[in-house]
């Protein structure tokens, strides 16, 4: 089966020599919701604009349903783009804005009207249909842009930080609408954002980018539990990085010689014995054991992954216990867990152990 959208070794070098995107590979299924996530200037917009056809592709191939479309003009592509500033036509009213795409395609007036009415109704724009877009609020404008793009029935909708200009509450509610709409219409969405929470809440898969390169493509949860690069482990979630030297690769995981002794984690990448690497420990993987834990019992579960620590902060919020624990090197990890699990035995100042199961951490080469 052909993918809806394929980027194969896509690269972009701007005229001034800036390499903005480097060797980008991605296969997108029909109806998938993909988010591009990364710090400012990492090439998200550039990639999106190449998909839309606004930016030439320097190297690699762009395929839509199996056919190469590198040189297809934007208006011939089955994509539609939503801009951060919405780019509504200021000289047309809301209805004219939405109808524009159908009108110039020469669709019969009655049919165009029917489609426009339906989308206006669906997005709750009926009351403002005859107003100029500049007289409307950010949320309304956002919906007009959405309606204008959806009414031409694109196969792929490209969104460049569409919620960036909205306040937090509005953002939340439009996020939900967007997700529902996408499920209902079955359109493939490619969504650019630099807000983690947005990407995590909306997408089926997240493409994390850094300095023009793809760092990782994973479902949201996996980004947390299984970061594949040091960048991702620092950028996403709350991970503790413990540096060391690779000792043994023979067993299930990989053992690492660190300042806290021998630690074990899941292997990743081509590691060789003697390599400098870091063990990535997600906060969710951390268990806190009391200082008086029976060592033999604990070893059965955690192996050597036990580090003595001191509780610096313990706060009960409802039934959630939030703790700060300090490792011997001074690093502080924020841990939270169900109060029952910890049975109220931890208070600030107490000694304890940070422990985790080896498969829940990852060793990544430096």
């Amino acid at each position, binding site marked *: 089966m052909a993918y809806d959208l394929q980027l194969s070794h896509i690269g972009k070098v701007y*005229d001034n020599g800036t390499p903005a995107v480097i060797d980008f590979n991605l296969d997108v299924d029909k109806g998938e919701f993909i988010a591009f996530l990364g710090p400012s200037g990492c090439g998200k917009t550039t990639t999106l604009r190449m998909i*839309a*056809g*606004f930016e030439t592709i320097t190297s690699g191939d762009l395929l839509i349903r199996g056919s190469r479309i590198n040189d297809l*003009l*934007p*208006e*011939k*592509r089955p*994509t*539609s*783009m939503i*801009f951060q*500033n919405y*780019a*509504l*036509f*200021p*000289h047309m009213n809301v209805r004219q804005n939405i109808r*524009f*795409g159908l009108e*110039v*395609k020469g669709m019969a007036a009655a049919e165009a009207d029917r489609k426009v009415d339906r989308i206006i109704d669906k997005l709750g724009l009926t009351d403002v249909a005859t107003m*100029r877009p*500049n*007289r*409307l*609020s*950010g949320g309304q*404008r956002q919906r007009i*842009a959405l309606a*204008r*793009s959806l009414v*031409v029935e694109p196969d792929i909708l*490209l969104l460049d930080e569409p919620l960036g200009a909205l306040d937090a509450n509005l953002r939340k509610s439009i996020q939900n609408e967007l997700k529902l709409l996408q499920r209902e219409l079955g359109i493939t969405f490619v969504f650019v954002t630099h807000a983690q929470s947005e990407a995590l809440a909306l997408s089926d898969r997240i493409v994390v980018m850094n300095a023009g390169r793809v760092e990782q493509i994973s479902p949201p949860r996996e980004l947390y539990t299984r970061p594949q690069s040091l960048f991702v482990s620092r950028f996403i979630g709350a991970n503790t990085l413990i540096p060391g030297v690779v000792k043994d690769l023979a067993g299930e995981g990989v053992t690492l010689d660190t300042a806290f002794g021998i630690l074990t984690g899941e292997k990743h990448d081509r590691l060789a014995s003697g390599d400098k690497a870091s063990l990535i420990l997600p906060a969710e993987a951390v268990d806190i054991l009391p200082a008086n834990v029976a060592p033999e019992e604990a070893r059965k579960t955690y192996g050597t992954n036990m580090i003595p620590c001191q509780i610096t902060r313990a706060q009960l919020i409802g039934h959630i216990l939030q703790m700060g624990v300090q490792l011997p090197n001074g690093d502080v990890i924020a841990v939270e867990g169900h109060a029952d699990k910890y049975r109220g035995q931890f208070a600030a100042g107490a000694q304890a152990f940070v422990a985790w199961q080896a498969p829940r951490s990852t060793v990544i080469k430096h």
Partner: protein
Amino acid sequence: MESRVLKPMLAVYVVAFILFLYGPFFVLWILSFQQGPDGGPQFPITEWSTYWYRQIFGLTPPSRIAPLPVGEALVRSLILAFMTMVTSTVLGVMSAQAFRRKFRGSGFVFYLIVLGMMVPGVLTGLGTSLLANNVFEITRHWYTTAFATHVAYTFPFAFLVMLAILNRFDSSVEEAAWSLGVSPWKTFRKVTFPLIFPGVLSAMLFAFTLSFDEFPRSLFAAGGTEDQTLPLAIYGTFSVEIHPNIFAFGVLTTLFSFALLSVYGILMGLSVRRARKLAMQEEIA
């Protein structure tokens, strides 16, 4: 301390400036109401009358003073200014549009275009007339050779105006149209053009007024008497004898210019007010 000296000096300067700017016109305006046909082009006014105005429109009985031969020249100049305006504005919009993307040699082409307003008019006119006479061996006319020099002269103005307008134009609305499946040409017609229209209006005004009172290029590049533009015709009457009819005519053309400016001002005001309203609402939102 400083302003006590500076301020009165500036005030004097401004008054002098206005006097020099409007003084001649004011004098012309008064003298245009001289009594006719015997009153001369000098003070004092022997008797106030509208004789010279009527004479321009052929409403006075024939006298020894021939009516100004401006009728046909005026029509010629209007047509020429109109043709120049349309051509230069179209060229200006198109070339400024081309300059939105960098292309090889764009710097060179830019200076080539702008040269048209830098080169002294006398040289352009003379050169054109020599080319027409000796190289191409064609007859010079106001609607051929003079027209060409007028376009070469006004096109850079239209080009620069449009360049400034397009420089500040947010091209994402065009991209939005393309991505809706609208062809570039239709996008230009339905999205870009309506939004840059105030600029187009300015370019048109520039081209029209510059061409309408263009003198040195027309002097050489237009043909004989039957090809004279208005400025040439007026200049021609000087060499014979000056009568107040020329003052009356000056007043009329100035009024015409004011009318043109007012139309422009109204159109511009409308679109600026709309743009300001957009901007304000944008800020509130």
